[in-house]
């Protein structure tokens, strides 16, 4: 497979590039590989690394007979009505297939984005990612709409397969329209000895977003995921996660940091220790910026082995008045003091978030707090 085989180089418009840069897009020549899906078609697929293939899901199904065995292997189409509809609609599936060859070490991040340009659109996507055994990659993904698009419905299915001993660090940033509904289903199978770090950043106003994530972690594999969830007034976010430690030595740490500025956030997290010598932690911390909002955090643990070590912490509260006063006594305005406390609460300086994106995320929080998003 050569680079030319997997490149579809339609140009993005200046507007498309601008809105995608807001969620982490960079010039494709600076990335290991790029996919951009606009409405119902993959507009751009390009690989800069010989160990990475990107193509449409239709092409992948025709090219590799094993892809059909992966599709819907982690997501059950009969799980609910929406998935059933999606599976029936996907006669001609829309989405990307990203394949990192076994052993490939890709220093430049792989990037993939979804754009919805038509108002009131109903968009179904299905992406499959395969990271080969021993590969090492960093991934950036995002979703965006132009400012003129407020309403619509996006349904996505993501199935990811992380090979034995592979390392994968990913960050995803969403920025949908303020009256949109989004249902996303993400399933990740992490093979033995792999290391996976994921970060999800959900900050923009949205009518309703339901995120349903499941991870299945193999022997001696490690997963660390962090979600930063913001709900301005008028936004409802439901965040369901299930992490299953399948085999001895599997470890996970999941942390959700939620901030409501008048919106509603529901976080249901379930950690399952399905084998001996597994170790997992759930952290759910919520910060209410106004009493109009609501945060429900429900961490749950299920041990199927006496030697599974599982723990959780959960907290929800308002901004600490003492901290606010302290910062104001240092000369900050109340708004600036609140921003700083919220940014600290969300731990934006974590190494998980690429430095280039950190400033942008900080700006998004300030904008979201002031009602600008």
């Amino acid at each position, binding site marked *: 497979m050569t680079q030319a085989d997997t490149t579809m180089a339609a140009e993005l418009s200046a507007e498309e590039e601008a809105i995608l840069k807001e969620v982490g897009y960079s010039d494709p020549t600076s990335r290991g590989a790029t996919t951009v899906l606009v409405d119902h078609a993959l507009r751009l697929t390009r690989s800069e690394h010989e160990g990475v293939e990107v193509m449409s899901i239709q092409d992948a199904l025709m090219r590799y007979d094993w892809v059909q065995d992966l599709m819907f292997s982690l997501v059950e189409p009969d799980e609910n009505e929406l998935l059933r509809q999606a599976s029936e609609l996907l006669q001609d599936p829309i989405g990307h297939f990203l394949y990192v060859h076994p052993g490939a070490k890709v220093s430049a991040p792989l990037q993939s984005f979804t754009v919805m340009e038509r108002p009131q659109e109903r968009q179904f996507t299905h992406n499959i990612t395969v990271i080969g055994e021993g590969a090492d990659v960093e991934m950036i993904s995002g979703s965006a709409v132009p400012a003129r698009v407020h309403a619509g419905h996006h349904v996505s299915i993501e199935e990811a397969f992380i090979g034995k001993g592979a390392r994968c660090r990913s960050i995803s940033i969403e920025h949908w329209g303020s009256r949109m509904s989004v249902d996303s289903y993400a399933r990740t199978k992490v093979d033995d000895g792999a290391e996976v770090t994921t970060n999800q950043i959900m900050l923009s106003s949205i009518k309703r977003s339901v995120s349903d994530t499941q991870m299945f972690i193999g022997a001696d594999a490690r997963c660390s995921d962090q979600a930063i969830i913001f709900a301005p007034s008028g936004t409802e976010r439901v965040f369901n996660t299930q992490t299953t430690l399948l085999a001895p030595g599997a470890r996970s740490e999941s942390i959700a940091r939620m901030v409501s500025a008048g919106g509603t956030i529901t976080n249901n997290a379930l950690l399952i220790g399905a084998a001996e010598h597994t170790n997992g932690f759930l952290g759910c911390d919520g910060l209410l910026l106004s009493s109009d909002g609501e945060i429900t955090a429900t961490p749950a643990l299920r041990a199927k082995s006496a030697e599974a070590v599982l723990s959780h912490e959960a907290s929800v509260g308002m901004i600490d008045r003492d901290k606010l006063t302290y910062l104001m*006594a240092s000369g900050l305005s109340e708004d600036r003091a609140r921003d700083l406390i919220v940014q600290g*609460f969300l731990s934006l300086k974590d190494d998980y978030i690429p430095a280039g994106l950190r400033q942008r995320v900080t700006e998004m929080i300030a904008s979201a707090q002031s009602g600008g998003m």
Partner: protein
Amino acid sequence: MLDVDHMTVAIGDAILLADISLTVPAGETHVLLGPNGSGKSTFLSAIMGLEPFELTAGTIRFRGIDLAGLGVSERAQHGIGMAFQRPPSIEGVSVAEFAAAVGGADRLAHGAELLDLEAFVDRDVAVGFSGGEIKRWEVLKLFLQKPDFFLFDEPESGVDMEHISAVGMAINELVAEPGPDGAKRGALLITHTGLILDYVNADQAHIMNGGRIIHSGPPKELFAHIQASGYVAPG
């Protein structure tokens, strides 16, 4: 510079400080001495405008401006800064980020070196700091904030002997440096142990007891008197 005139401070119906008057001229450092519960920290908190303390009578003027009705931020923006006795932890905000937020990033390296806190610049503010480190941080904070008038609430308490001199010298440097317009700065400092008096260039001391200032005089003389006779006015 700071003029407190017949000030009474209360929380609800409980009067904590009664009829206190005190003036700190520009360029001077004054010291408040008093036993536990005498009202020293309440006095500083009332000047800073911290809740839940209420000014129920009298006035506090800073450079002629009546502070009544001004919030904490406004008082800070007018040039008053306070080293807290027990600051809250600000999780997720590093010392360096705090410095940037208050506009003091360019002063961080020097202040941190002076107070032996170079290793703390990437640590979260007051998270996991020992008692002495917190006190040094609070002085460093004022280096970053650079107010014109400093309120120090027991800056040497919990600080090991090696670092008390560093704290004292830092305080001297803060107060001695003229403001941007060349104006002199000033300070009011609470001390319990008196150890800091060996290092700080204090001009005047006041004994506070029972919510009142009962005597004023030269700092070292007054402290020697307290060591001999307790927190009472010299006969």
